[in-house]
C-alpha cells in the first residue's frame, strides 16, 4: 500500500509539471507586454506568421475592424503546422511545404480573438483584435 501511495505522489508531481509545461496559458498575463503588433501598410493590416514545427509568433495584437491580411509562410514545413485551420473563418488549407499564403480577413471578421491551429490541434496561435 505504501508503494502505491509513493507512486501516486510521484505521478501527481510529474503530471503537474507536464501540464505547466505544455498548457496553452492563453490569458494568464493580461498585459500583453512584449506581444508583437501587426503593421499597417497602405491601409491594410498585415500579420506575418511563420509555420514550422508550430506557429511563430504565437500571439499577435492587431487593430480591430481593419481589412487584414494574414500572411503565413512555410519553409520546409512537413509537420502538422502546414495543415492550417481557422475555425472562426471556416478556413482550412494545406499549405505548400515552402511558400507564403495570404489569407484575407474582412473588417467585420477582424474582431475579438482569432484562433488558428493545425488540423491535429497540436500547435496554435492567436490574433487578438482590439
Amino acid at each position, binding site marked *: 500500500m505504501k508503494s502505491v501511495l509513493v507512486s501516486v505522489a510521484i505521478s501527481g508531481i510529474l503530471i503537474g509539471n507536464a501540464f505547466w509545461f*505544455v498548457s*496553452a496559458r492563453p490569458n494568464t498575463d493580461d498585459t500583453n507586454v512584449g506581444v508583437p503588433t501587426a503593421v499597417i501598410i497602405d491601409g491594410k493590416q498585415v500579420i506575418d506568421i511563420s509555420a514550422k514545427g508550430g506557429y511563430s509568433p504565437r500571439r499577435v495584437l492587431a487593430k480591430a475592424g481593419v481589412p487584414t491580411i494574414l500572411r503565413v509562410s512555410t519553409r520546409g514545413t*512537413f*509537420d502538422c503546422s502546414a495543415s492550417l*485551420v481557422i475555425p472562426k473563418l*471556416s478556413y482550412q488549407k494545406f499549405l505548400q511545404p515552402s511558400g507564403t499564403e495570404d489569407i484575407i480577413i474582412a473588417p467585420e471578421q477582424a474582431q475579438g480573438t482569432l484562433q488558428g491551429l493545425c488540423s*491535429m490541434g497540436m500547435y*496554435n496561435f492567436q490574433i487578438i483584435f482590439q
Partner: protein
Amino acid sequence: MTESELMNVPYITRAKSSLNTHSVEVTGDFGDRPEPEIAEELSGVLKRHGYTLSVEKNAHIVELADFAYALPVSVVIILGFLLLQKAGLTSFITSSDVSYGAAFVIGLIASVSSCLAIVGGLVLSLSASSAKEGGTWRTQSLFHVGRIGGFFILGGLVGLLGNSLHLGLTANVVLGGIVALVMLILGINLLDVFHFTKRLQFTLPVGLSRHVMNGSKHDHYLAPALVGIGTFFLPCGFTQSMQLYALSTGSFIQGALTMTVFALGTFPVLALLSFGSLNIAHKPWKGIFFKTAGIIVVALALLNFSNALATAGIINPLFNF
C-alpha cells in the same frame, strides 16, 4: 459444450467459457459456500470431458499492485513524449525538396512527433489488446503489410489522379474523435479495472476492434490489413504533407514510392510498439505492461479528444507544443 453442461446444474443461471483464457465464468445462486468447494463440485460435472475447474487467484487485488509501477512509468513516458514535441525535431528537416531519402527521414521524425499521439496510440492500443487476447505475430504483421501496401497504392493513386485524398475539416474532426473513442475504450480495457467496458467493447467498435484483436483466432486476414490501410487517412500532418508532394509528382510510381518510403520511415517505431507488445505479453511482468499501455493510451485518447474539439472551434486549445 462446457457451457451447456454447467447450465444443467440446477443452481447455475449463466455460464460462459473462453478457450482463450482457459476460463469459465459462472453466475448463479451459490449460497454461502466457499468458492473452492463450488469449483470442486463443478469439476465433477466436467470431468468426463477432461476438464477440471479451479478458482482463479483473486486476481484483482494482485493486479492493483501493478499500478504502483505502471503509473509512474507511464507518466515518465508521457512526459518524455511531451519533451520530444518541445525539442523541435522538425528543424531537422531543412530541405524543401523531397528526395526518397528525405521522405524516409520525414517518416522517422513523423513516427516520434505529434503523429505518434494518434497513429502510435492506435497501434499501441490495438496491438496490446490483441496480444492480451492471445493474438499472434500474424495479426500484427498483417497490419504493417496493410499499412505499407496501402501507402504504396494510395500514394500512387494520389500521384496519378493529381488529387489528394486527405479529408475535409469536418471529416478530420469526426475521424479524430472516433479514433480517440476507440483508443479510450481499448485503453480502459487494458487497465482491466472496470468491467463495464468489456461489454462496451462488444457493442461499440464491433466491426473494428473485435475483428482486429481476434484476427488470428478467426482467421480474419482482412481486418488488420484494412486497419493498416486506413491509417493513410488518419489526421497526421506529416502524412498529409507527403500526400501533397506525391500529388505534385504527377506519376503513379513516384507518388507510390514516396509514400512507401515515408511509411517505411515510420515503420521502426510502429513495429517496436506492436511486436514489443506481443513479446512482452508472454513475460511475467505483462500485467504492469498492459496497465502502463492502458494509462498511456487513455491519456493520448484524451489529448486527441481535446485536439479534435479545439480544431472544431468548440473549445480553446488546451495545449501548445
